[in-house]
Every structure is written in structure tokens, then in C-alpha cells.
């Protein structure tokens, strides 16, 4: 039934009132977002053009911090290289590992709830505590991992004392938190229509074909999500690198990650301006990586109704 002009006006006022009320409810969150997130982000952009030690007022230095970073700070390039290497190793391994775990957790076996809890528990462990435990496990002399290698007749490795093995050791540490990604994959797996899988089975498709042509394509949105989150997380790797390699990225700067480099300039050398410039570069790098992933996803992301068949 068409609305009369007066009714229309009433409804408009009601909407506005509802919008205001809604806004009032989200105001605390919006304010905290503006004050505690947006302002610091904008401040970091501004501070990246200044020399600033927290106590004295920032002094405008233009592009000096960026020039120093690109031309006079070899540690910056080392940290970029280390972070990139870590990301290239940790993200694919993390994706494959968490997907494998999710597939296991999706099986119908007894005590599944217990397994799911156990798989997720490590994600709740405090990062410093778990890193310290891993440092003990990676100990070249008395560590569990070398003991296991010796048991199977393999040579013991230097792990965190050896520049060749320190990054792989950090990557292995990162797998400790696979549970979080696995749970997201699990949710994706449970969204896959059983009818499709059953139909494929009736058509004679085995487990691999079902996985390759049904499960994997339907999981691509979840893969995209985990990939983006994984890349962002890897760019921000900090606690294990700092706890195991200190502020110099021992051994031989092999664990000096970009976040550690930012941290030491900000909170150890009190060079907030330069640290802000590093943070801006990290932000842009993450932005570009995320954009590149989304662009590439056009080629491999399978959406419902899409007529591609993997």
C-alpha cells in the first residue's frame, strides 16, 4: 500500500532516530578506533618525516629517514631479506599444515572434540613462553630435536646457533600455532555440501579426485583468507625472532626481522622518527602484498556459480 506524505516523513524521522541511536551505541568503539588506532597510524606517517625521541618535540627532517633507510642502513635490507625468506617458507608450510590438520579433524572418529581442542590449545600459549620452550628444544647440545635426529641416525644441527638453520627453526616454531588456521579450514570444510562429495563418489571418484576437484576449489575463499592473514602475520613476525636472536638477530643477523629492526630503533635507540619510517614501509609492503594476492586470486578463486572446474 502506498505511503501517505505524512507517513513517509514519520518513517524518515524514525530512520534518522534509529541511525542516531545506532551510532550512539557504536560510538565508544568508533572513538577508540579513532583515538587509539587511526590517530597513531596518522601520527606514524607524520613522525616518519621527523626526528623524534618522545621527550623532545619532533623536528621535521623531510625525507631524511627514508634516504637513510634506503641508502645508509644495511641492517634494513638484511631485515627485509630475512622477513621475505621467512614469509616464503612459513606461509606455504603453514597453509599446507593447517589444511592437513583440518582434513584430519574433519574425519568422523571418536573423541574428535578432544582432538580439536588439543590442536587449538597451542595457539593460546603465551608467545614468549612457547618461544623459550622451543629454544630449549632446539638446543644443539641437549635439545629434544637433535636427540630425535640422532635417534634416527641423522646429524645434529646447530639450529638457532647456526645462520643456515636459524630461519628454518623460526619457521618450525611458527607451525606451533597452526591450530587457529586449521579451525578456519575446518569451518570451510564443513560448509562443503555432502551431496557433491557423495555424487562424486557414486561417479567413481576416489579420495584424491574428490579433494582435488571438489574440496579444494570450494575451499579457495578460505585459502585466500588464510593466505592473506598468514602473509600479514609473517611480515609481522616478532616475538620468536626477538627472544631467540635478541636485538642483533643472532646468529649473524640471520633472525633480524623487520619488526625487530623497528622495535630496536623505537624502544632501544629512542629513534621514533626513523622507526616510524620503517613502520610506514612495512605497512606499504603489507598493503602491496595483500593487493597482489587479491589480484592473483582472480585466477584461482572459485566462487559458487563459477563455471570453471579447477
Amino acid at each position, binding site marked *: 500500500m502506498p505511503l501517505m506524505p505524512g507517513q513517509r516523513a514519520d518513517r524518515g524521522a524514525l530512520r534518522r532516530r534509529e541511525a542516531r541511536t545506532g551510532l550512539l551505541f557504536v560510538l565508544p568503539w568508533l572513538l577508540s578506533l579513532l583515538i587509539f588506532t587511526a590517530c597513531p597510524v596518522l601520527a606514524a606517517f607524520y613522525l616518519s618525516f621527523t*626526528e623524534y*625521541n*618522545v*621527550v*623532545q618535540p619532533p*623536528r621535521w627532517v623531510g625525507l631524511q629517514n627514508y634516504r637513510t633507510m634506503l641508502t645508509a642502513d644495511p641492517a634494513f635490507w638484511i631485515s627485509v631479506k630475512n622477513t621475505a625468506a621467512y614469509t616464503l617458507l612459513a606461509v606455504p608450510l603453514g597453509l599446507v599444515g593447517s589444511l592437513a590438520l583440518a582434513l584430519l579433524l574433519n574425519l568422523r572418529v571418536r573423541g574428535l572434540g578432544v582432538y580439536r581442542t588439543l590442536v587449538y590449545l597451542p595457539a593460546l600459549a603465551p608467545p614468549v613462553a612457547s618461544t*623459550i620452550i622451543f*629454544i*630449549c628444544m632446539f*638446543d*644443539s*647440545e*641437549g635439545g629434544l630435536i637433535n636427540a630425535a635426529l640422532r635417534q634416527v641416525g641423522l646429524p645434529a644441527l*646447530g639450529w638457532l*646457533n*647456526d*645462520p643456515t638453520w636459524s630461519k628454518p627453526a623460526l619457521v618450525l616454531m611458527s607451525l606451533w600455532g597452526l591450530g587457529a588456521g586449521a579451525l578456519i579450514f575446518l569451518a570451510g570444510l564443513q560448509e562443503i555440501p555432502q551431496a557433491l562429495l557423495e555424487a562424486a563418489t557414486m561417479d567413481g571418484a576416489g579420495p584424491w579426485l574428490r579433494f582435488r576437484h571438489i574440496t579444494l576449489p570450494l575451499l579457495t575463499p578460505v585459502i585466500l583468507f588464510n593466505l592473506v592473514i598468514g602473509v600479514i602475520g609473517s611480515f609481522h613476525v616478532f616475538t620468536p625472532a626477538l627472544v631467540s636472536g*635478541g*636485538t*642483533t638477530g*643472532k*646468529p*649473524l*643477523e640471520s633472525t633480524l626481522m623487520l619488526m625487530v629492526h623497528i622495535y*630496536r630503533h*623505537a*624502544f*632501544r*635507540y*629512542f629513534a621514533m622518527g626513523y622507526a616510524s619510517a620503517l613502520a610506514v614501509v612495512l605497512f606499504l609492503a603489507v598493503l602491496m602484498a595483500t593487493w597482489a594476492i587479491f589480484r592473483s586470486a582472480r585466477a584461482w578463486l572459485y566462487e559458487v556459480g563459477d563455471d570453471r572446474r579447477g
Partner: protein
Amino acid sequence: MSIMPRGPARTVIDRRAFLRLIGLAGGTAVLAACGTSPPLEVGERVTVSFWTPGGGGEFCAQLDAIAKDFQQHSPGIHIGPTQCGTGEQEFTEVLLARIAADNAPDAAILWTSPAALAARGALQPLDQLIQTAQYALAENWPPAVLASCRFTGKNYGLPVTAGSCGLWYNREMFEHKGIPAGRDNFPKTWEELRRLSQEFTFWKGDRLEIAGFIPWHVAEELPIWSALNGAQLYDAANRRYTIDAERNVAMMAYAVDWLNQEYRGDFAQVLRSGNWEGYELAGRKPAFMDGRQAMVLAYSWNVGDTAHAQSTFRWDVARFPVGPSGHQTVAGYWPNWLVIPKGARHVAQAFTWLDYLSGVGVQAWFRHFPDLPANRLVPRDLLPAGLVAGKGEAFAQDIMTFFRDQLDIATPMWDSPVQDFATDQIRRALERIMHKVATPKNALAEAQKVCQGALEKVFKSGA
């Protein structure tokens, strides 16, 4: 106005007015909290806020107990409960932020060099207060230790404790080899130390089973070895780094030669074989405590550690031998500093507290946590109970006298306004030298260049 009269005796506040009032009250509370405290009335009791970077609950409880004693001596000053660290946030970051917000604590313990914070305008100069002090007079501190608080001629802190170091050695390992184990018989030169070290070093396959002494490779200790070789890493008087001075290059070349000769030139293998430092590392007990290392550079605070105080073997401590270009022995130290941040409200009262802590409070501190008091007025017969119980009073007295004397021959350290930056650069250089990624000359020259650059930047910015 939304306070609407509804009937003769009722006033109803609508929701908007209520929210406005809440906002107004909250704003007032926030402004009150941020505002400055009113000036003190004569005779009014002052509360001094006091921060420490951490140290654990027991340590902070001990500081609170000392504060209670202090309040009996100075009834007009109340020391607030010790702020024991800043939770998950970096202590210095929080302290600097509070200073910038003009809401600094009145006094603090620092684990970062006061020179570095003074250069950034974060600390109050204490010279005038020191002149009127009861315990903290300048002449009551070992000069090199007090130098760690100086920046551009002014004093910005008190080195309340300064753990001194020496060469700890396992007497039984010496005696087992028929080597005289008296302190006076200990090597006086690097060459003698190196020869002695070889007597103990023993490899079993690829594993370094027993080490004599591992040559210098720790950044924080390098100023000591440099001074032993007649050089220095930082020249505070002339505001310049001298990391790549000829004697320092020679010192590192000596270490590499030693490594090659006694440790197969493979520092990675040495590290893989054990923990050769004087403290627990990544869950690994020091090799010295396992009888796998004859000599190690370690600090005085180890005397409070049960493992040392009640060790089953006999140990002793000796002075450092002198390098080929050096002419006298020196020692090193690692302090806890007391400072008054810039913007502190109660400077005079805070200094009275820090003065007391330097001379009297530190004695109770030492009884529970054996950080060596640096002030000369602190009695020298103050002994750690654990060491007395484990090794006897005579031995404990001898050891503590040794460490107090070491402070008097200490070389200046921790006195650079870019201390942490320089320590990281020196650590990088040492690692590259010992792992043979760079020659001593190149690695030290690289460290010199960046440290001097950072130093000049600080001075140029008007420090």
C-alpha cells in the same frame, strides 16, 4: 535544558541530560587526573612516586620495606608503593611517555645508561643535590662508576649498585693439574692466560669437552678487554668512538688467533658444545658450574646464587691479566642507576630518598639480592648470608673485599649517549669477527663508522 519539571515536587532527568552529565563528570575526572598537583603547604607530607623496571615481586617488596624504614627517618616523606615494572610495555618507553606528558614519577631505578636518557632531555641533573647529600657525595663513589651517570659534564644519576667482575676460576681443576691455585699465582698477562688455558682445553671428537678460557666475545665486556690492552672504545671527554683504534684491532686479532690455535678456529662449534658464559643461557647451566670450564669472566652477583655459594667444588676469583699493549689491570661493572626524571614534582624529597637508598637502603637490598653497593660509605663487612653459610665467613669476606676493590680500578663504561645502539653494533662486529665473516679491522671500522655517526647525530640535535 532537559531537566523537566513534572509535577510540583519531582524533577526527572531525561536520557540525553543523563548522558551529558556523565560525560561532564568523566571529563572533569580526566582533567583532574591530568592536572598538576597544587603547591605544598609548609610541613605537608609529600608522597614520592618510585618506579623500577622490574626485578620481580620479592625485589619490589624489599624496596617497599626499605621505603618503610626510610619513612621513619624522614617522616615528612612518604614513598608510594614501588611501581614494579610496566607490565607488558617497555619500561623506558612508558617512562619517556610519562615524562613527555609531564606526568613523570619522582624517582626511578634505571637499567639503561643515564647518559642515553640525559642526552634526550629526560633526566634531572643532580649535581647541586649531590653536593648537599649525606651519602651520595661525589667523592663517595668510585670515579669510573660515577662516570656512567655523567653527560656533558653534568651528573644525572647515582650508581646505587654496581656488580663488579673478575676472572672466576675452578681451584680444583688447577690443583688437579698441579698448577698453583693461589690468587697471586694467577696469570698477569694475556699471554700467560692463553698458555694456562691450553692446559685445560680438551676436545672429544667435534665436541669441546673442557675449555680453559674462551677469549672475549661479549659486547658488554669488550670495554674491559680494550682497557686491559691500553685502549678504549668510547672517549667521553672528547665525544668520540675509538672502536677501530689500532690496539682494539690488535685485541680482536689476538682473540681470533687464540680461537684458531686452541679452539680449532670454529666458534660455532665452541658455542654448540656448551654454555661458556658465567650465567644460565637458554636453559643451559654454565659449563663452569659443571666443571667443564676452568676460567670464566663473571660478576659479583653470582655470590648470591646458591649454585656458586654452595658449590661442591672450590672456586676463587682473580684480577684480569693485562694485554700486550696495556700497562695495568682494570675491572668492569654493571650498575643499577637511580635517577630523577625531568618534570618530577618532588625533586628534593625524591633525592633525599635516593640518597638514603644509596647509603643505607642498599644494605638491606644487598642482604636479599646481592647487587654490590657502589657507595664507599657502605660497610665492607657486609656479606651475603648464603656465601657465608656455604663457604665460611673468611672466604666470603675475602671475596667481597675483592669485588669492592675491583670497583676502585674499574674502567669507564656505560657512558655513551648512544649506549644501546653502540652495544648492538659492537655485538654485531664481534659476532662477525668470531665467526670469521669479517676481519677485525673491517668489522670494527664498520662499527666505528655507524656509532660515530649516531653519536654526532645526538650532539647535533642539541643534546
